[in-house]
């Protein structure tokens, strides 16, 4: 489901967006720095500051994320569902390492400590091709 073509959009180059819904059905939109690829059918988010997003996910695991391909600003929508939360293991370590690398540049590795990695099953991937005018032909 997550194709090779989509991978650059999951490198944290262009910030992504996530929409979740609360128990009383109020949507919540949050900008996130990266949607991490896990495997062909899963992505992950880091739980740092988006308390409302993660609170919503406790009661309603369904969410939609929009990622942007850095090469052509192509927009992709992923319908996802929170399936598990990891606080150790290879995925957690990799995400934690990325955060630590950047945070340590301003001695903030403690502030940016990853609390957990939220893993989502990807239900659909849609490229919003019509949202962009075709690139000018050379």
């Amino acid at each position, binding site marked *: 489901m997550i194709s090779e073509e989509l991978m650059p959009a999951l490198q944290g180059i262009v910030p992504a967006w996530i*929409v979740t819904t609360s128990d009383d059905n109020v949507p919540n939109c949050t900008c996130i720095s990266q949607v991490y690829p896990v495997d062909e059918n899963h992505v992950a988010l880091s739980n740092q500051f988006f308390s409302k997003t993660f609170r919503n996910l406790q009661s309603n695991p369904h969410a939609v994320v929009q990622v942007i391909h850095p090469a052509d*600003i192509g927009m992709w929508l992923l319908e996802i569902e929170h399936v598990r939360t990891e606080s150790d293991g290879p995925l957690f370590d990799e995400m934690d390492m990325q955060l630590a690398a950047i945070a340590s540049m301003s001695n903030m590795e403690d502030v940016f400590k990853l609390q957990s990695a939220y893993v989502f099953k990807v239900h659909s991937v849609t490229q919003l091709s019509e949202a962009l005018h075709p690139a000018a032909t050379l």
Partner: protein
Amino acid sequence: MPELDLSSFPEALALFDGPISMVLGSSNVQKRPHFARAQGVRRGEAADEIVVLVPDIMAAPIVHDVQENPNLATTLSHIANFETRQFVGVCTGIAPAGAADLALCDTMLERSSEAVAMFFGEEGANNWKRMVTRPAQAVHIQVCDIYDQTPGDRAGAKLV
């Protein structure tokens, strides 16, 4: 219920001038959220009203959801300094955007492309400008809550 006056939130309103990234979120009766990238935002006639401009190509799920659940959330994020505010409220109406609103979208896209160039160069900015802005729907929202979602300590703080 006392009416919220957006004028009391100059920092949030300042974002309306851009350069920003704008999104609109809705949710259907099954509590499935939906996403639309907006291309413009302005204040509405009422003191607590904002109008979010969503290109038609993006608008369908939102238009559908508000029939079932009027709750909407729109988040504006400054492209250069990450100042972010979320406006949460209810949909009070959706209508095709007029010429002035469409012109506003084009202006805002121009402005955001300039900021995008800072991170992704000319090529990135040129791609950003490819975003379709018209035709669009003007989504009217009566704002109930405003949240500061700037990354950092204050993230998620409810301002109203």
